[in-house]
């Protein structure tokens, strides 16, 4: 995708964006990149690669707000700690989440930054996949692999019928 001109906040990407966040060398923090790889293959085979843009990064940052421009749906996939279930899929609202760190913004704050920049927000969801171990150089834990498979099944359902995202979300 070509660089956007500074100040140009108009979107020119696919209607759906999926952010996959994590460091592939830190144990279950690799859940995001792992799911990114699986999604990339599946989207091609399902013929959906033109309608879904995948963005992989180590962590969310403020510039990811720009990637929301012009979207109809945004999904943030990330590993979680002490997540109450193996996979939690829930609707997000923009908010100023009290945080001590800008090293990694929570997804709610990315939405808030987009709002502050005058951008209309798409419906947005977080898919939090429970991680168990985050040690340097470790592979994905067996539990995380199981959770990743559940997450993939959920994502396939959502991406095949984006209008169903609300029904599939917790409380939907």
């Amino acid at each position, binding site marked *: 995708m070509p*660089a956007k001109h500074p100040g140009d906040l108009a979107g020119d990407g696919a209607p759906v964006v999926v952010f996959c966040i*994590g*460091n592939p060398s830190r144990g279950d923090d690799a859940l995001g990149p792992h799911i990114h790889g699986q999604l990339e293959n599946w989207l091609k085979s399902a013929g959906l690669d033109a309608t879904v843009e995948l963005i992989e*990064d180590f962590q969310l940052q403020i510039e990811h707000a720009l990637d929301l421009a012009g979207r109809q749906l945004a999904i943030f996939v990330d590993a979680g700690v002490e997540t109450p279930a193996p996979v939690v899929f829930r609707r997000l609202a923009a908010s100023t989440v009290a945080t*001590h760190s*800008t090293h990694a913004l929570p997804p709610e704050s990315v939405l808030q930054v987009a709002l502050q920049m005058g951008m209309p927000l798409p419906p947005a969801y977080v898919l939090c996949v429970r991680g168990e171990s985050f040690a340097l150089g470790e592979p994905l834990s067996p539990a995380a692999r199981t959770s990743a498979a559940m997450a993939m099944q959920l994502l396939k359902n959502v991406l095949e019928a984006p209008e169903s995202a609300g029904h599939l979300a917790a409380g939907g």
Partner: protein
Amino acid sequence: MSYQLETAAHPESLRRVAIDPVSRVEGHGKVTLLLDEQNKVHQVRLHIVEFRGFEKFIQGRPYWEVPVMVQRLCGICPVSHHLAAAKALDQVVGARQLTPAAEKLRRLMHYGQMLQSHALHFFHLCSPDLLFGFDSEVTRRNIVGVAREHPEIAKRGVLLRKFGQEVIRVTSGKRVHGTGAVPGGVNKALTVAERDELLRDIYQIIAWSRDAVHLIQKVHMQDPGLYNSFGIFRSNFMSLVGHNGDLDFYHGTLRARDDNGKAIFDGVDYCQYERYIEEEVKPWSYMKFPYFRALGKEHGWYKVGPLARVQNCDQIPTPFAERERKEFVDYAGGSPLHAPLAYHWTRMIEMLHAAETIKDLLHDDDLLADNLLVEGERAFEGVGVIEAPRGTLFHHYRVDENDLVTMANLIVSTTNNNQAMNEAIRHVARRYLHGREITEGLLNHIEVAIRAFDPCLSCATHALGKMPLEVELIDAAGERLHALARG
């Protein structure tokens, strides 16, 4: 250059305050303060997670994987590790001189990295402190608070960072985990279309960078009593300098000065770094404490990064940034300025220089050539040094006859600044906390001093819910009296 407040005389009788981890810096850090019953400060220490685990992680891998693997050290400055490793391994493949296209493409990537990292730090890590004051409530100090109350500043920060990342993307092939630099050169040429996309925006980027310098200059000059003294300590300083003493982030020789600006060494081939620099181990920290061998442990420690670089070079080879450097030097009055908050001013001068250099490179037709790789006589050891956003970064590798890495030694910028950061927070503790009731605003003074150095504490996993901030007050008996947690 003292070690006052490093170790208390009778720690067993003191109250302990821990800030764990330090907020709004990359990765994990922890500050501990030992206070007596009158809240007088007896000991202050900054503990930081080290990269040694990663050095072990690299050992045993094929050398050509290393420039890609080391990017996983940090999500904020992966390009610096990528290029430092590639420079070291150039020596292993016998690439003594890269092709003009390869060197300029690497420079373009690196200056894009400097631009985006400095923009992130200034606009989103520190501007909340600078614009709202050190005592403002936590939720307003964070990035979103800036966006709400200063929408134009926040927007420029986003777009400056975005532009720097586009430079990285077109030179490395990907937005993250790029593979642009390889031992002996680069593996991707720049297309005319990619160059023209960047050229379209660069003059706006330069203009915003100039504005940023003037903004921090104004903030600094409005309160010289604070900005020239907060956390101040005197020290030696070190950086690479380029040809003719130019400011150069990508390549050069090592130069060090003492606290008065007098040369300690100059023109040093960085491959000989072990002759000049040694690392001390202290029992209370995982991170080592480097110092100049010639001056010894007590007097040989130093600082690196923008404040060191801008005052260590003889000139900046781009006109707008050079004009700003001269203003800074004039303001300092002819001798080195050691105030940690002056890092912000010099960081913005460097961001402007990065923007101007990107412009110059984009107008250089060498960038479009397709002669990208060289090789020569095989070697088994290499040292790569680069000026990363936070300061001088050393990568040193040994490789065996099977192409596997047998030794890796990294001295990262934050390690070079280890003693300097400890001294800064000790000064702040003495000045602001000594004998006073500890409040969150006062604890933030400690964090303001740390953030001035822009420490990178290794890119710890960022998973949702993984990085709480805890502040604990523990009495002499080890009982927790009070605790705060968020994140």
